[in-house]
C-alpha cells in the first residue's frame, strides 16, 4: 500500500479572480476540482493513503474532501502555515509519511494512466514528460535514465523532457533536503551529493493551468473522457446528443438542446428552450432561464443566468446571479495578466458572487473580480478588481 503526499497549499496568483476564495487545486474542471481528479487517479492506481499539505484557503479543501471517504481514500491533513516554497511544504509532512511515498501537485491535472506504472517504482525517481513548450517548466536532462539536472524555466531548453513534479521518494530524503528551496533544487543538490534520481517517462494526461482561460481548454480535454450519468428529469422534446451527463434532481425542460460533451451537476433547472453546446461544464444548483445559449464554458455552482443570454468561451464562477439578456460572446481579445500581454479568442471571466443587471454586454477578454455588481445595460471590458461597482 503506497502513500501519496499531495501539495495543495498553492494560491495561483495569475488565476485571479478564480483563486480569490479557493486554492488553485480547487478550480473546477469538468465538474470536479483538479485535486479530486488527482485523488481519483491515485485511488484508481491503488494509492488510498493520502497526505494533503494545505495552506491558502484550506477550509475549502476540508469541506469538500472531509476524511476522504467519499473518494474512497484516507486523508491526513498537514498545514503549511507560511508559504515558503515546495520543499518547505513537503517537509511539513515529515511526521506522517511512510518509508516510501509519492509526491504530487494538487493543481496539475492527471489521470490514472499517467501514474499507473510510476506508483510501483523504487525511490528516488521523478516522472517526466515530453512537451512542446518545455521552457515554462522544469527541464530535465538525463543520462541512462538517471537525472543529471532539473533546470526550472530555462531560457533555452536542452531537452523537451520536463519534470511533472511527481516524485517517488523515501523518508530519508526528507532529512537532506533544504526547506528554503523548491523541491527541484533540493533534488539537484541531492544528485550533486551522489544520490541517484531515476527518470520515468509518461505519455499520460498531465495538464497545468496558468491563466484563467486554461480552465476552458482543460475542461474541453477532460470532458471527452467522462462517463455520462443520467440522474435528472428530462422533459419531452429535449434533444441530447454526444456525451451528456446530468446530475440527480436536475430538470431539463421542454425543447432544450444539449450537444455533448457536457456535464451538468445536481439540482439544476435548465430551460425550456435552452441550448448547451460543447464543451460545457455546469455545477450544482444552477438555473439557466429560457432561450439561453451556452457554449464552451464553465459555469460554477449556485449560478443563475437569466433568459435570452449568450455565453461563449466564458468562465462564470459560483454564486453569480445574472439577469436576462446577458451577452458574453467570444471574440479576439488582448488580455493583460500581471505584466504579460496575451491575445486570444475568449469570452468573459466572471469571479464568484457577482450580481449582473439585465442587458449587460461583456466584451471579449473581460475579467470581472469577485462580488462585483454591474447595473443594467452596462458594457464591461478590460480588467475590473474584486468588489467593483459598475453603475
Amino acid at each position, binding site marked *: 500500500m503506497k502513500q501519496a503526499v499531495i501539495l495543495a497549499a498553492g494560491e495561483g496568483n495569475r488565476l485571479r479572480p478564480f483563486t480569490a476564495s479557493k486554492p488553485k487545486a480547487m478550480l473546477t474542471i469538468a465538474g470536479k476540482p483538479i485535486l479530486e481528479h488527482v485523488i481519483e487517479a491515485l485511488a484508481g492506481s491503488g494509492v488510498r493513503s493520502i497526505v494533503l499539505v494545505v495552506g491558502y484557503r484550506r477550509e475549502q479543501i476540508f469541506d469538500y474532501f472531509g476524511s476522504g471517504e467519499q473518494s474512497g481514500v484516507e486523508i491526513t491533513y498537514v498545514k503549511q502555515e507560511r508559504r515558503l516554497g515546495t520543499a518547505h511544504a513537503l517537509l511539513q509532512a515529515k511526521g506522517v509519511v511512510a518509508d516510501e511515498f509519492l509526491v504530487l501537485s494538487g493543481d496539475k491535472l492527471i489521470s490514472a494512466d499517467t501514474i499507473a506504472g510510476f506508483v510501483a517504482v523504487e525511490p528516488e525517481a521523478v516522472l517526466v514528460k515530453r512537451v512542446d513548450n518545455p521552457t515554462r517548466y522544469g527541464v530535465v536532462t538525463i543520462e541512462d535514465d538517471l537525472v543529471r539536472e532539473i533546470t526550472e524555466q530555462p531560457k533555452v531548453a536542452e531537452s523537451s523532457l520536463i519534470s511533472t513534479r511527481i516524485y517517488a521518494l523515501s523518508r530519508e530524503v526528507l532529512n537532506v533536503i533544504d526547506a528554503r528551496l523548491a523541491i527541484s533544487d533540493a533534488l539537484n543538490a541531492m544528485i550533486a551529493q551522489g544520490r541517484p534520481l531515476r527518470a520515468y517517462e509518461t505519455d499520460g494526461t498531465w495538464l497545468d493551468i496558468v491563466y484563467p482561460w486554461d480552465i476552458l481548454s482543460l475542461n474541453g480535454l477532460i470532458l471527452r473522457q467522462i462517463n455520462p450519468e443520467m440522474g435528472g428529469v428530462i422533459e419531452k422534446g429535449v434533444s441530447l446528443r454526444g456525451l451528456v451527463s446530468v446530475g440527480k*434532481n*436536475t430538470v431539463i425542460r421542454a425543447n432544450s438542446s444539449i450537444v455533448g460533451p457536457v456535464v451538468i451537476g445536481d439540482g439544476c433547472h435548465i430551460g425550456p428552450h435552452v441550448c448547451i453546446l460543447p464543451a460545457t461544464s455546469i455545477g450544482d444548483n444552477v438555473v439557466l432561464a429560457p432561450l439561453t445559449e451556452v457554449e464552451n464554458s464553465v459555469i460554477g455552482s449556485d449560478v443563475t443566468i437569466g433568459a435570452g443570454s449568450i455565453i461563449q468561451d466564458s468562465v462564470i464562477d459560483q454564486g453569480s446571479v445574472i439577469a436576462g439578456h446577458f451577452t458574453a460572446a467570444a471574440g479576439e481579445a488582448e488580455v493583460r495578466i500581471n505584466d504579460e500581454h496575451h491575445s486570444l479568442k475568449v469570452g468573459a471571466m466572471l469571479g464568484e458572487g457577482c450580481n449582473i443587471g439585465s442587458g449587460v454586454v461583456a466584451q471579449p477578454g473581460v475579467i470581472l473580480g469577485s462580488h462585483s455588481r454591474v447595473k443594467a445595460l452596462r458594457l464591461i471590458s478590460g480588467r475590473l478588481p474584486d468588489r467593483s461597482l459598475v453603475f
Partner: protein
Amino acid sequence: MCGVVGYIGGRNAQPVLLNCLARLEYRGYDSCGIALDGGSLRVCKDIGKIAELAKVVPQLDGLAGIGHTRWATHGAPSRINAHPHLDCSGTIAVVHNGIINNFQVLRRRLEAEGHSFISETDTEVIPHLIEKYYRGSLEEAVVAALGEIKGSYAVIVLAAGESKLVVARNGSPLIIGVGDREHFIASDVPAVLDYTNRVIYLEDGDLAVVTSGGVSVTSRGAGVERKETRILWSVEDAQKAGYEHFMLKEIHEQPKVIRDTLVNWVSVADSVVDIAAMRRNLESMLILACGTSYHAALIGKYVIEELLSIPVRVEIASEFNYYGQTLARTAAIAITQSGETADTLKTIRKLRAARCLVIAITNVVGSSASRLADHTIYTWAGPEISVAATKSFMVQLMVLYWLVMSYSRIDPGRLAELVMDLRGLPEKVQRVLGRGDVISEYASYLAQHEDVFFIGRGINFPVALEGALKLKEVSYIHAEGYAAGELKHGSFALLGSGTPVVAILARDNTYEAMLSNIKEAKARGAPVLAVAEEGDVAIRELADFIITVPVVDAIFSPVVNTVALQLLAYYTARERGCPVDTPRNLAKSVTVE
C-alpha cells in the same frame, strides 16, 4: 451510510464488536446488530443506539463475530431489517454495506427454489446464495454467491464452527486491522484504531479469508499481496477532517447542507409536505420545540405569517406539556434534531391524543419522533457531533422555508424572487465563512467580558436569542437575547462600558428602530458590535465593530446573520480555552424531561 465490523482472535468478540461499532457511529445509523459464533450462531439486533443494544444483549461468548450499523435504504428501520442476516439453516450470517441492484430477481429465484426470506432488505439474498452454493468450502460458496450479484458491497460472512471470516469488497470501503494473532475488519479505519494501527486496505474485487493467524487475499481467483499500512493519525483527527473542533467543521458544512436541501427539494419543486391537501381548512398552526430548534421555530413563525397569512403559535415543548391547550383542527410541527428530545416526544403524544395532525422535523432516521408523528421530514444534515447545534439548525430553517414556499398560496412573482434568493444562499453563507479572520478578532475582544446582550427585531429577534444561546453554551459567558425594544423595560439598568451589545440588523421595516436602539445602548456607554449588510453606511457611524454579511432578502437574513453569530461564539470560546465540542453539564440530545 451503513458500517460493517468483524473480529476473529483470542478475545471475547462481543465487547470488541460493540466498541468498533460505536466508533462508526459518526456515519449515522438507525439500527444495529451483532452475530457471534460460539459453536452455533447467536444474533442480537434492534433499532436504536449501540449503547441500548449493549444494555439488552445477553452475554454471548465467541471468538469470532460480525456487527453492523444500518442506515435504512431497502426496507424501513426495524429489528427484522437490521443486520446480520441469516440463511435458512441459521448457520451463515452476513453483514453488508452497499446496494444490490438485482436483488429482486435473485430473491424471487431463491424463493422459487425453496429459500424463505424474513426481511425486506436486499442483503438477505447473500446468506441464502451462500447456503445454495455451499459444498464444504465457505470461500468458494462466497465467490459463487457474489458472482450473481450486481451492485456494490462490502460484506463479512461468518459461518458456524468455521473459525474464519470471509470478507469481500466491491465499491464500498473495507479494511482489515492486523493485531497479535487477531484481526479486525471494518468499513473504516477509526473503528479499529483502539486495537491496532496496522491496517490492510482491500481493493475492489478483493476477497479475503481471515483467521486469527492470517489473512489471505485473492482477486479474481488469483492470490494477491496487500501490504500493511501503519496509521499515524488518531480517530478524532480523521473525523474532524482538518479542523480543530467539530463545531467549526459543522459551521463550515452549512453551504453544502443548504445546497443539499435545494437539490433534494427545490430543484424538483417537490413539496416537503402538502399542508393544503392534508387540511383544507387550516386556520392556525402550532410549532413546538426546545433549545436551538425553538429558535428555528420562532423564525418559522415570522416566515409563515408573512408569506401565508396564517396565525402561528410557537411553544416551548416542556412548557406546553404542562398547560397547553389545542384544538383538533390545528396542524402542529415538532422540531427536534435528535428525534429523541423527551419533552418534544411527550408533546407529540399529547397532540396526537388531541387528534392534531403532527409533522416532525428531525435529523435522525428512525428516531422516536418519526415513529410517533403523522409525517416526518428528514433534514439530512448528516451526523452532528458538536453539542452546540449549528448545521442542524440551518437545515431546520431551510426545511421551514421550503415548507412554506412549496405551499400554493404564495404569489408566483414573489415566489420566483424568493426561490432565486434561496438558490443563492450557499454562496452567501460561504462568504460569511470567509470573514472568519475578522470575526475571530472581534471574538477576542468579546472574550474579555462576562456579560453580553444580543438584540434584534422582527425576524432577527430569534436570531438574537440563538446568538446568545450559542455564546453561553460554548464560551460560558453570560449572554441574553432581547427584542431590541424590550431593553429599555428594565435591562437598561445593567448596560455600561463592560457589557457589549451585539446588534443584529436587517434591511426591513425594523431597520430604523434598530438604529435608535443602538444609539440608546451607546448612550449608556455600551460597546456595540453590529451584524449588518454590506454597503450599510449608517451603521459605520454608530457601531464599534461591524461584521458585514451579504445582501439577501430580509426574510433570509436569519441565515447569514446566524452563521456570523455561530462563528463569533466559536472563536470566543476558543479564545477562552473552553472545550468547544463538549461544554460542561450539557448533552447532545436531551432525553430526560
